[in-house]
């Protein structure tokens, strides 16, 4: 029985070979039609896990890149807004400088007051800028306008159109409420500065009697106000406006002095006007400080923007590397695959051809 071969053994061996060749052929055909070496985790269990991890990382990079884009835009808008406010602050300071030198007459000062009111209104508008539906200077109170202008009242308690204060409504009266976006695993970048930190406020309220409706009047019969807070450029603007309107009042009093006023009375009012000019002059340093404060905030924005630019570069580099890595694992070398495909096709055909000729051969053909 040495070297015995049986028909059924040959047949099953041949079928086995054909199936193996067909399997190779089918596998290569699938790889070629998808362009990928690894189409299922069963194809290569080890590398599949690498592909999955890398794809996960790529997904994160996409999110971080989108966040960086969003951060950059919001910071750019915040920065532009703060620069515009600085310009207005500078203009207000110029007005203050020229008002303080005492050469302006009453009419000049009145027109200065009108311009100052416009400056105040546009500064408040700028501080109320929103980005993507959020007020950018409101801290985390993103849905309420962060600044509102406060108007005075008359002796009966009815509102007038005289600006008396600028109130901050955002969060973080004490505290620094940040809105943050993730730019790397566990790394968050802040996209906002509260209006309080950038512009300050000047919250002024009328003083009422116990009934809460009737204003408390001063000796001259005017309503009285309490100043709850005063800081930043907002405080400066209101201070300047108060000083200016005091000056105008004194100049009016001077004009309205009766013909027979004594020299002492004239001197007294002159001294008061002088004091008013001095107080305007005293505000100039405050303006400088507030502008410096805004410059500091703006340079912080600049630092963050630079950091974000660097992160963008780093992210796009690692994205490129990851894509290259995945492609290296998963993508098919088409040239090699096609030549293998032809080889396996030939092997498949050959195995079928030999099988049919061997299986049809027997002594029966010669009997």
């Amino acid at each position, binding site marked *: 029985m040495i070297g015995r071969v049986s028909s059924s053994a040959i047949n099953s*061996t041949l079928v086995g070979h054909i199936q193996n060749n067909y399997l190779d052929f089918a596998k290569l055909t699938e790889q070629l039609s998808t362009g990928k070496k690894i189409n299922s985790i069963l194809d290569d269990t080890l590398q599949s896990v690498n592909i999955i991890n890398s794809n996960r990382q790529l997904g994160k990079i996409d999110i971080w890149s989108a966040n960086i884009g969003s951060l950059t835009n919001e910071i750019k808008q915040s920065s532009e807004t703060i620069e515009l406010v600085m310009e207005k602050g500078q203009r207000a300071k110029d007005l203050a400088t020229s008002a303080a030198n005492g050469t302006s007459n009453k009419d000049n000062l009145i027109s200065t007051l009108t311009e100052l009111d416009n400056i105040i209104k546009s500064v408040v508008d700028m501080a109320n800028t929103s980005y993507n539906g*959020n007020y950018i200077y409101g801290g*985390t109170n993103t849905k309420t306008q962060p600044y509102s202008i406060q108007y005075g009242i008359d002796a009966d308690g009815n509102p007038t159109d005289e600006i008396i204060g600028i109130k901050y409504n955002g969060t973080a009266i004490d505290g620094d*409420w940040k809105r943050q976006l*993730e730019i790397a*695993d566990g790394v968050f970048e802040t996209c906002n500065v509260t209006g309080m930190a950038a512009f300050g406020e000047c919250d002024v309220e009328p003083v009422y009697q116990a009934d809460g409706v009737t204003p408390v009047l001063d000796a001259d019969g005017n309503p009285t106000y309490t100043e709850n807070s005063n800081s930043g450029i907002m405080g400066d603007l209101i201070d300047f406006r108060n000083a200016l309107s005091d000056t105008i009042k004194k100049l009016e009093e001077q004009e309205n002095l009766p013909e027979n006023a004594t020299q002492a009375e004239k001197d007294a009012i002159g001294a008061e006007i002088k004091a008013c000019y001095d107080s305007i002059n005293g505000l100039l340093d405050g303006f400088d400080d507030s502008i410096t404060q805004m410059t500091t905030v703006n340079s912080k924005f600049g630092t963050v923007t630079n950091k974000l630019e660097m992160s963008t570069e780093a992210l796009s580099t690692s994205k490129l590397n990851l894509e290259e890595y995945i492609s290296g694992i998963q993508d098919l070398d088409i040239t090699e695959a096609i030549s293998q495909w032809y080889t396996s096709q030939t092997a498949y055909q050959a195995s079928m051809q030999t099988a049919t000729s061997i299986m049809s051969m027997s002594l029966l053909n010669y009997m």
Partner: protein
Amino acid sequence: MSSLLTTLGMSSSALGVNQTAISVVSNNIANMNTEGYSKQKVNLGALFLDIPIGNNVASQAKTNAGVEVISIERYTTTFIGSYYRDQLSEQSYLNKEQQAITNIANMFDELKGQGLDTAIEDFYAALDNLNQYPSDMSARINFLDAAQTLTNSMNKTASNLNDLKELSVGDGVSYESLKNSEIYTSIQAINQNLEKLANINSMITRSQTGTLENNSLLDQRDQVLNELSQYANFKTTIQDNGTVTLSLNGTKLVGGTNVLAKFNVQTAQQYDEYCQMNGIVNTNESNAVIMLEKTNGPTLQNINDRMDTGLVGAILNTSSTQEGVNVNTVLNDLDTLAQTIANVFNELQTREGAFYLDNAGGTIQLSNANLEDYEIFTTSDGSANITASNISINSLLLEDGGYNKIATAYFPDYDPLNPDSVDLNAVGNADNIIAMINTKTDNTSAAFDSIGNISLSDYYSGILGKITSATTAKTNAATSQNAVVSSLDTKTKEQTGVDLNEELTDLVKFQTAYSASSRVFTTCNTLLETLVNLGL
């Protein structure tokens, strides 16, 4: 001198012998494709007379008496037998295990869009979006959608795994489900083969009363033994009379012409009831419990431990709670993942200092005292334990306006006695969401203890890694075992199979011998006629 009549007798025996030989060839050719058939071969022997011959040539010639068939022998090989059956048993065990792990791996084929990775990542992406627009309705709804997709994927995967388990061993409760399971079918098949074997034994006993063997019955016997060995590695002892004694761990299943013990299978619930009735400690963890019902003797209620080989062993393994990667262990891992997800996010959602929006979407309110109403993840079936099968989104959050209940804001300095410690207008405060996003990298909180303080993604990767490496290992084991069996198969077929050329050669050989014998017969006949006519 031998007589003409003796010669005539010799040629007639040759005719008969060759005819028998041709009939064996014919049987071989007829069965050339019969599975398990072994080629039969006619052994011829010279007939002789046992007489004293001395120096007498004529007597010497008289001792020749023609030809006879001594035996019809089947080709056997050393590869058939217990070694081959051990290998068959191992093969069906490994192939079943491989099939089971491949089914699981297919459910987690991330490259084909299966699995949970995308759902987990999308959940974190939705959190990122919510961080950017915490007071935005669409960001909130988008987050709940992502959370729901995550729970749905977990439910779906768990239900698929449970289906696989039910397909193997039933659901452990319903007998109907057990009857549709693989374990039930296998047990039935074993029982049928036991019957068949007892039947063959009794036929062999009836048929093989002398020294000659009934080749076809022996082929059938080997075939049944091979079949049985695929289900479990039974011990077989072949007796002198050709019958087989089959036993499992010392318990005789088939002996002589009788089935001595039959298998049966019961649900885990049935077994539990039995244990309670008889005061037995139930340590069974499988959904199906195999029993051994002895014809003469008590029924063994649970022999799962003994059934650790072959197809049955592998089916029981696919759902065992022992170490390894199978439906049960993967389900347990997913349950742990589901519990961790629920713990981590519910804890942040309901912690002190976490605030959500009121229904107008404006200001932020204090979390209610009834914290459970604000949990993000809960169970769909009301049970206290969160599993991958029942994890779902709190329905209160899915109600109209329920999305506002997501606690986006967090005030670390919140003091319940001091209302000024929070700013009720801070709708843009997303610090609680940031804390949730941070769970990607910061896994130190106690809620992460259950998964070893690693991130959810890493834990899931761990599950994937376990599945893929088990798939590789089991595929390799099955492939090499298939090669072993297939080479044994080929060797067996080579040595015992019918070869057409061989049979045709035999056919021509015996045909020629038959023709020649008939020529001798005719010649003798003519000679006898001549002799008869001599006297006329």
